[in-house]
């Protein structure tokens, strides 16, 4: 019986070792590919950082108020962008390698994920661009509202920011195929509500302000803050 057990054990061990030995070239090839992917990603990191510096990404983002001033060194936006791009390149290359080698279910999973990558990248770009645009919109709306003498200027700015951010999020989710028609319908209800609220606000309380604003843009009357009185002349700033 001992001999039989030993025979079965050795045969099993042999089969296992044989099976492992058959996998070794594949694993070695995969590790080699991953090493190449890491090399490509690391090689791209430097040029990406230089490209960001050349484009003046940090300065431009600060200038538009998208990131706060003082983010330097390891927290600089250009460094963050270079890191994200590097890791994205690395992840895509690894997925491409996994999907191309014969690794059974892993390859199938990697192939499916790889097919999803373009939509994921597009959604990420839309969302990030939307967040950046929302900051720009917030600042522009705030300054414009203050110059028009609107006391709830900050609220208007925040409202504009969140509208753009939500819109970007909805488009990104739609791009990813998450939520289906729920996102579109929710967004429609949200915007519809806002437009209705604005229409009511204009109709009930702010018609004079809107009239002044429209008139100013149509170059018919001076600004509300420097309106000439009945007994005086017009003020020309220059």
């Amino acid at each position, binding site marked *: 019986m001992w001999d039989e057990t030993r025979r079965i054990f050795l045969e099993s061990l042999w089969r296992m070792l044989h099976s492992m030995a058959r996998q070794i070239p594949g694993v070695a090839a995969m590790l080699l590919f991953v090493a190449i992917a890491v090399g490509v990603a690391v090689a791209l990191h430097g040029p990406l950082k230089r490209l960001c510096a050349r484009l003046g990404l940090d300065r431009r983002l600060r200038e538009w108020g998208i990131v706060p001033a003082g983010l330097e060194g390891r927290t600089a936006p250009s460094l963050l962008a270079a890191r994200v791009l590097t890791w994205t390149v690395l992840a895509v290359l690894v997925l491409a390698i996994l999907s191309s080698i014969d690794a059974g279910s892993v390859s199938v999973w990697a192939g499916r994920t790889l097919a999803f990558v373009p939509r994921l990248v597009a959604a990420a770009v839309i969302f990030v661009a939307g967040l950046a645009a929302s900051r720009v919109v917030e600042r522009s709306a705030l300054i414009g509202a203050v110059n028009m003498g609107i006391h709830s200027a900050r609220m208007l700015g925040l409202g504009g920011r969140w509208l753009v951010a939500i819109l970007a999020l909805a488009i990104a989710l739609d791009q990813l195929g998450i939520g289906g028609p729920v996102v579109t319908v929710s967004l429609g209800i949200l915007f519809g509500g806002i437009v209705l609220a604005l229409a009511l606000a204009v109709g009930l309380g702010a018609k004079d302000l809107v009239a002044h604003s429209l008139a100013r843009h149509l170059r018919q009357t*001076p600004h509300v803050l420097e309106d000439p009185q009945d007994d*005086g002349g017009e003020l020309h700033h220059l």
Partner: protein
Amino acid sequence: MPSGATAPATEMAAEIVVALERRPGPFDPTAAERLESELGRRFPGRPARVLVVRVQGGAASLVPADDPALMASPGPDGAAGLPGPEGALAALLRTGAERGAAAMALVAPGRDAGGGDWLGKLLAPVVEEGFDCVRPAYLRHRHDAPLNTGVVYPLLRAAFGKRLRQPLGGETALSLTLARRLVMDPDWRRDAGSAGSDAWLLAKVLAGRERVCQAWLGAWPGASAPPEDASDALARALGQIFHELERHATRWQRIDGSEDAPVFGTPGALEGEPPRVDLAFLLDAFRLGQSELAPIWSHVLPPATLLALRRCAACSPETFQLDDGLWARIVYDFAVAWFAKLVERRQLLASMTPLYRGWMAGFLRATRNLDDAGTEARVEGICRAFEQEKRYLIARWRWPDSFNP
């Protein structure tokens, strides 16, 4: 002859060329004829040619007043007033240089309707006194044109060292020497967006060796367009001026103090109602800006200035005042922020509007009970503050990062 004037222009036999910018609406060719006859009487023996700026396909050209195309076209589409090689000034410089005109003048839209010898007064320093550039000065109410009073005049005076009371006047008279130099200027190719603007011309003259003077032309005839909103006027004027400060940075940093520019004519007395401004609205706008825009201003202004502004906002309307030195430093800080691109430029200039309104409120309150001479003395105080604080501008311009917001 005022001090600073030199020998008359050498191009004696040449004509005078005047470019008349059109205002929208039907064109009256008799205005050009009337101006020609007035100039003929004022400068006998020197033919005057009054041409009209015609904009076609986005490019301005000078055509005779009896050109049938002028009658057919509805009026300018706005391109004539724009800078660049296709603008009215470029057309005048090209035409004047080609014709070898002894003197040339650019006349703003609607100015041709006025009577009197204002065009002769504008051209006389070039034709008779040998100046290269004449800037107009109009008699305006002491409270009118506050942007010129509080920003444009003090800033350009401190920067370039010449006391031109209304630097961005619209009209101008030029000599052939200056026109030939300007026509060849590389800015027409390098910086077509701003070359040919009023501030560009003025900065070129002030930074160069040309002789510049100002001529009082009487009461201000009024703008050809409705009044601009404070924000638009500020952005337009300061955008141009800051751009020229950037272009001529090496020049203006070497200038210390200021000197009088030769003046022709006298201001005279002004009739009519002063412009009425609601000080309470201006103060409210300043306080609103101080409370809402302080985070944006913190990228531009140093903490001490922000603190001073907060204190100002807490003042009562009767005591509200922006100190002259503080105001000068604020304008300089915005110039540095524009140059260093600390905040997006349009947003930067727009965010300055509440500060300008605050300054305007303080100035109007302080000069409410003063006469013209008293107000002018107050303006002189502002200008001196700008000159005294110029070292601050130079230091910040050279090391914009030294103030870390």
